[in-house]
């Protein structure tokens, strides 16, 4: 399935874009997705950095199974305030 992924802040700059369409197998998890995104955008973050993902506007753990149409965002370390 093709998933639409949004990048914010540092990730947006590192990816050079705000959104990308990423192909993953049906039943793919958040961990599968971040691996696929890393392959597409190797400069996004070094391997030892855990890329945090939000699915449908909630933080999601690595095992969360993704479905077509999910709103997926990559969340760099936050610094509001």
């Amino acid at each position, binding site marked *: 399935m093709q998933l639409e992924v949004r990048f914010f802040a540092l990730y*947006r700059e590192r990816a050079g874009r705000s959104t990308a369409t990423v192909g993953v197998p049906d039943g793919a998890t958040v961990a599968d997705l971040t691996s696929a995104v890393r392959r597409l955008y190797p*400069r996004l973050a*070094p391997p030892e950095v855990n890329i945090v993902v939000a699915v449908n506007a909630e933080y999601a753990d690595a095992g969360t199974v993704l479905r077509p149409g999910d709103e997926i965002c990559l969340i760099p370390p*936050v610094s*509001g*305030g």
Partner: protein
Amino acid sequence: MPYEMIEITHQPLDPEQVTAQVRRDANGAVVTFLGATRLYSEGKKVVRLEYEAYEDMARRKLAEICQEIRAEFGIEDIAIAHRIGRVDIGQISLVVAVASPHRKEAFLACHQIVDRLKETVPIWKKEFFEDGSRWVACDDHYFAPPGAAARQQARP
């Protein structure tokens, strides 16, 4: 009825207006936090900031924080306004106002809201210096892109 305002806006913030949201006759204490752009960050002169938000999720996380705080501190009235986009030095990026019948709860709740906001709400701050910029909290070493990280690790 508890009152809650959550606002994420590109417009300049008006602290008086945010504070006014939570003032009621039952509330003897109102604590307001203003976060403003500082001239120096870790010794470097900042010329301006830019904030970016994942707005839908930020509103949702802020509403969750309000709910937690109400349960923990027994307070009711909370107003939060976060500015995004460009914010110049000395301008206000965040206003949090909490009102309560008594002051202790208002102080603790307001402090906790700001602390939790900074931990979990998807908003990002970029500092612009005279000679560069950085995303705050994305520590340079840790977050250096793979090539740069390899170069750093190669140092003696």
